[in-house]
């Protein structure tokens, strides 16, 4: 068997090893990489920056731990941005893991020194509405009455007893909706209901798998912007002047992409050479 034939039939565990090393090795080096920002991310950042203090932002955590490396950095940097601008944040989830992911992000951000110094109060500055079943029908119900969709918050307190929620009945009382989505229900449903039916101002953070599917919604009253994958999270961290996890991971991300491209090139070269040999 020739070299290229052996190359085509290579054991996949060798490929797995290359990928593992490509991901793991860069993590040992604290390399800071330049992250270019894109208009899609700048759109969301500017939309939040233009909100006046006291404005209400709804954050929907529509993902599970499987998508955490991509979406959790987005959630944290967005939350940090909102709190530092004095915005009120209403958290919820259309996935049952969502509210726990929200608490995770809150735990990290609220313990940062500058945010901690602001002495933010649950029920006044932020609230976690939790999860309710129904997928997109929940968004529809929120459009008519949020208190009917979520009679109580994540901890069982009636929404009527929560100061932040007293004046909030539907999307007319919410200034910006930010959706973090890993699938269904997610950004598409938020666009269809919140943006198109109830005219909410909507931004989205998506996993990189989903992001290209949401590009057609960009612009003209559907999506003001979109964060796509870990790169999107890194861009937001750079715009907010707080590079964190996502920026740190960019070195690893770049090397792994280069390795995949290398494999595709080698695989094609091997294919062409073996095909040429068979033809001759």
């Amino acid at each position, binding site marked *: 068997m020739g070299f290229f034939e052996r190359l085509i039939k290579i054991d996949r565990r060798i490929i797995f090893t290359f990928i593992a090393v490509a991901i*793991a090795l860069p993590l040992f080096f604290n390399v800071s990489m330049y992250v270019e920002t894109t208009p899609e991310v700048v759109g969301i950042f500017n939309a939040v920056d233009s909100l006046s203090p006291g404005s209400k932002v709804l954050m929907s955590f529509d993902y599970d731990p499987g998508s955490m*490396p991509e979406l959790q950095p987005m959630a944290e940097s967005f939350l940090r941005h909102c709190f530092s601008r004095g915005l009120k944040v209403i958290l919820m989830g259309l996935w049952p893991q969502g509210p726990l992911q929200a608490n995770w992000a809150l735990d990290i951000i609220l313990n940062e020194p500058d945010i901690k110094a602001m002495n933010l109060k649950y029920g006044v500055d932020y609230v976690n509405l939790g999860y309710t*079943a129904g997928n997109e029908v929940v968004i529809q119900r929120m459009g008519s009455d949020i208190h009917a969709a979520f009679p109580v918050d994540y901890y069982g307190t009636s929404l009527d007893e929560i100061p932040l929620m007293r004046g909030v009945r539907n999307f007319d009382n919410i200034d910006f909706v930010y959706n973090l989505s890993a699938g269904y229900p997610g950004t598409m449903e938020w666009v*269809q209901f919140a*943006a198109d039916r109830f005219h909410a101002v909507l931004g989205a953070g998506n996993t990189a*798998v989903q992001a290209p599917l949401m590009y057609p919604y960009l*612009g003209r009253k559907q999506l003001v912007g979109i964060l796509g994958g870990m790169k999107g999270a890194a861009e937001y961290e750079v715009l907010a002047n707080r590079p964190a996890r996502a920026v740190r991971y960019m070195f690893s991300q770049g090397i792994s992409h280069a390795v995949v491209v290398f494999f595709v090139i080698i695989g094609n070269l091997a294919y062409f050479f073996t095909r040429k040999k068979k033809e001759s």
Partner: protein
Amino acid sequence: MHPSPDIGIWIGGLLTLGIFSFLYGDNPYYKFCEAFFVGVSAGHWFITLFWTVFIPKLLGNIGIAIHTFRTDGFAAGMSDYMHWSYIFGGILGFLMILRLFPKIGWISRWSLAFVVGTTAGYYFINYLVSNGLMQIQKTILPFTSIGNIVLVVGTFCGLIYFFFSKEHKGAFGGLARIGIWFLMITFGASFGYTVMSRMSLLIGRMDYLLGNWLGLIG
């Protein structure tokens, strides 16, 4: 190297390695982790639904209705239909569970029909407006830049390709061919983003193993 002293992180690390062991080959360690994951996942859904839907929504609203009937009388209770009507939601939900019993499982079709009808009713309008009409509206662009031309031509030719009722020959076939190229670019970009996504998830796990668990990285 500073391994974590937290027993929970060690459990998480060992479970992670258990799933990764599948890369070498299917084995009992992986099967254990997989079976545990299935059970744990089901348990999480059960508890979340119990405390966020069953108790506050179903029982909570019926409780409010009973309270209204008791304190304000029958007429007031009947007019508060948004609360007592949850009984019907509960009944339809219970009928869904009867699907587990083959002899009377047919009655779950009533609940299923409600779910299907609701979804179909919403989808009919939503997809028509958001994914149909608004996308067509966004495609109607002036030919003032190359980008606009590419967007209009690409969308049009892509749609031409999907029209299978007419044979792709002649000028129609030529436009469909252009459509294929646009779709290939779309799928290539999607593949690129998919690779990005999968690698990101693995980076997260590696950070957990090497950082949180073994303390090899800061």
